[in-house]
């Protein structure tokens, strides 16, 4: 299946979970949040959230600003 991660297209095996995207990104252990199709998914639910074809995922963190 194809999903969009931070604006880029990724090919993932069927049955992939949100946590698989995060581990492929090498996400730091803290300071990160994830939105799936425009809604925040808390860290505790990353492993149990299955992805579907066409899903849009945003992975964000805090940067200098404001």
């Amino acid at each position, binding site marked *: 299946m194809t999903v969009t991660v931070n*604006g880029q297209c990724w090919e993932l095996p069927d049955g992939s979970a949100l946590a698989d995207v995060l581990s492929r990104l090498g996400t730091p252990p803290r300071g990160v949040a994830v939105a799936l199709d425009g*809604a*925040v998914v808390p860290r505790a639910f990353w492993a149990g959230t299955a992805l579907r074809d066409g899903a849009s995922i945003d992975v964000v963190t805090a940067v*200098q600003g404001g």
Partner: protein
Amino acid sequence: MADDPLVIAGREFGSRLILGTGGAANLAILEQALLAAQTELTTVAIRRIDITAGGAGVLDVLARHGIEPLPNTAGCRSAAEAVLTAALGREALQTSWVKLEVIADDRTLLPDPIELLDAAEQLVDDGFTVLPYTNDDPVLARRLADVGCAAVMPLGSPIGTGLGIRNPHNIEMIVAQARVPVVLDAGIGTASEAAFAMELGCDAVLLASAVTRAEDPPRMAEAMRLAVQAGRNARLAGRIPQRFWARASSPEL
């Protein structure tokens, strides 16, 4: 001299200078500036993660010195965008505090008052402690407090302009009617303007560019810290009334 702490939503802060982290040339300079400012609360933006950037980020710097990060919604144009960004900030930083920014356009970076009030109301309902960056409009400031914002943060002039406080009377009106702390946010260019904000009765000053884009950011951060203290003291001390004609301070001959 002794001063009461700044209290926002029941939390006490010894420092009345909130330093934003935007605009610093690098993290080392930012770290020195944060320490010179003696700030306890500092804004950060929420952006897509750049894994290739690597290395220690701004959060590591803040954690090292026990400075509280305040996530903002910078760059958001609509209430919907701001609400999602605030939710991401809450999840990423495990704080329900948010500096709410909803900007109308890139040229002025002025707040969009309609979207701002809408977002503020939604976020307050969702349990956020909302600190809105707002226009220097006493009516809008009152409406933001009415919907439950924990502070109001009127601009002195547009973000990054360094034009100081363009409408001091509006800031005084906002202060005069405020039931929540007033934080002068945006437009400060130099120390005298930070002092002026405090003399007008603001409870704190939030600034970034004036320090981070100065030629010597740590030195400007120290200047701002002292200016905020000086302005606060002057406010508490009660200035003399202005007079048209001179009044001798020495006894008559």
